[in-house]
């Protein structure tokens, strides 16, 4: 009796709305046979017990309503109970296994805690590191310490992206195959990651003592100078000012990076190779950022070439007539640019 009552109770407990479709598939013809099996099957009792426990742990209040709804289907309850229990067990086990696998994979691959120690900084530390990135240290006989953090470099790259976007919008750069934002992000992140990897590779060849994280941090903080220069010169469009800042600010941050690398490398040839490459790439990048996304170039284009597009430029540009304020500055810029073009031509 208990065996028969238990599946009935289990059926009432377990046949919730989600197995309604399953119950309909059971043919009514075999009901008598299955009822007999249900009554005599003692191996099914373990399923029933487990099923009972299972459902009682999870579904307490809903069972009352499900049971009230199921009271009408009197004769099929036993058969539904057995098949429903088994399928429910199997489905539950599959769900648990799947969930376990998914959470294991997720915790393995999407674990951002791997990066957590690199973001463990205080605002005061970030500020001091920003200022130190502009101050070259003379002591090159002793390996200088590089802070291995990623917050500062990442924020500087994003700031550079924002400044670049500002510059591109001001000069109305048109990118045909992509978007402005995509180009800005691609340029800045590409420079940071690509040049870091390249210099790390060269450092490996030259036996310099520097890790990839340290190189990323060093180059990232070196972009602070770039941010300052571009922020000022995208707003004040004076050619001479840009060259002055390029040499001064760009030069200082490059010297700082070079000094750190020299202190960690042995041998004059290796030092020359490594530091020369880094200095060249860093300074040329600033030059590129200024000239590729700046209005002044249009004046030079008009003066020098006319409708032809020189290979350095990506897309043709018109002098923007969007802002009335821009019209004034455009005429002023054209005058500056023509003066600049004349000096360039004379070289």
């Amino acid at each position: 009796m208990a065996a028969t009552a238990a599946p009935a109770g289990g059926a009432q407990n377990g046949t919730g709305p989600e197995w309604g479709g399953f119950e309909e598939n059971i043919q009514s013809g075999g009901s008598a046979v299955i009822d007999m099996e249900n009554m005599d099957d003692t191996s099914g009792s373990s399923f029933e017990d487990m099923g009972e426990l299972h459902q009682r742990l999870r579904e307490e209040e809903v069972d009352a309503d499900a049971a009230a709804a199921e009271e009408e289907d009197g004769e099929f309850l036993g058969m539904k109970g057995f098949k429903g229990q088994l399928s429910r067990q199997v489905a539950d086990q599959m769900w648990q296994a799947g969930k376990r696998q998914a959470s294991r994979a997720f915790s393995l691959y999407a674990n951002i805690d791997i990066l957590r120690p690199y973001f463990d900084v205080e605002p005061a530390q970030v500020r001091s590191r920003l200022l130190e990135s502009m101050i070259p240290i003379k002591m090159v006989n002793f390996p200088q310490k590089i802070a291995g953090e990623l917050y500062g470099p990442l924020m500087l790259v994003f700031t550079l992206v924002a400044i670049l976007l500002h510059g591109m919008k001001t000069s109305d750069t048109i990118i045909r195959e992509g978007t402005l934002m995509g180009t800005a992000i691609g340029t800045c992140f590409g420079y940071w990651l690509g040049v870091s990897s390249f210099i790390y590779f060269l450092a490996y060849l030259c036996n310099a003592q520097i890790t990839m994280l340290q190189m990323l941090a060093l180059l990232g903080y070196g972009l602070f100078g770039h941010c300052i220069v571009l922020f000022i010169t995208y707003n004040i469009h004076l050619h001479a000012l840009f060259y002055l800042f390029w040499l001064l600010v760009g030069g200082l941050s490059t010297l700082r990076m070079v000094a750190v690398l020299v202190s960690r490398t042995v041998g004059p040839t290796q030092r020359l190779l490594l530091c020369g490459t880094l200095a060249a790439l860093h300074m040329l990048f600033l030059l590129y950022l200024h000239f590729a996304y700046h209005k002044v170039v249009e004046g030079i284009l008009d003066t020098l070439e006319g409708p032809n597009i020189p290979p350095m430029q990506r897309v043709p540009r018109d002098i923007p007539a969007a802002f009335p304020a821009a019209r004034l500055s455009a005429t002023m810029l054209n005058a500056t640019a023509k003066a600049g073009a004349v000096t360039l031509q004379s070289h």
Partner: protein
Amino acid sequence: MAEAMESSGDGGTAAPRPLFAGLSDISISQDIPIEGEITIPMRSHIREFDSSTLNESVQNTIMRDLKAVGKKFMHVLYPRKSNTLLRDWDLWGPLFLCVTLALMLQRGSADSEKDGGPQFAEVFVIVWFGAVTITLNSKLLGGNISFFQSLCVLGYCILPLTVAMLICRLVLLAEPGPVNFMVRLFVVILMFAWSIIASTAFLADSQPPNRKALAVYPVFLFYFVISWMILTFTPQ
């Protein structure tokens, strides 16, 4: 045997209880209205909830969701230190705001010189990937806010900038001139500050106290980029 089955059946199942009896055990302060049951992990309650909301009319569902979104909009417009946005997050508001902003920032695409197409995708990608990046950053800095809560807050705080976009669009209907530009600049700066204050009011509590500046700076950059896109928008 039939009586035994029935009686044991009755004993095995509990006596019928009222539908939401268990909900009185949950402690939620009554003065802040709740929408949604994200924080309650009991499956049976949720299933019961679902089946009851499945049977209601579509209008009821839509009105309920709209009211929840509208309530959060009010919280953004008058930012106080509350955690309503955090507790019952939803992403309808951010989606609606993002799509509105992206549609309004779309230029006319008939012009061959200026490509209007990428503007929508650009804004969309900037908003969502920017929000994801800020969320990851604040989590890495040690904040105890969940991923979607942060997305919800950042998305809702775009509301002032969307209002700024609407105002700029209206102002641009007037004649262009430096006054026009100054008005738009003022409006955008004001709304930008409002967005930052609103998002800081919600996010600041989740960060360790000495690192608030580190978490707020990317938010500042994010809204700066969006404000810049709004300010430099000129319909062609």
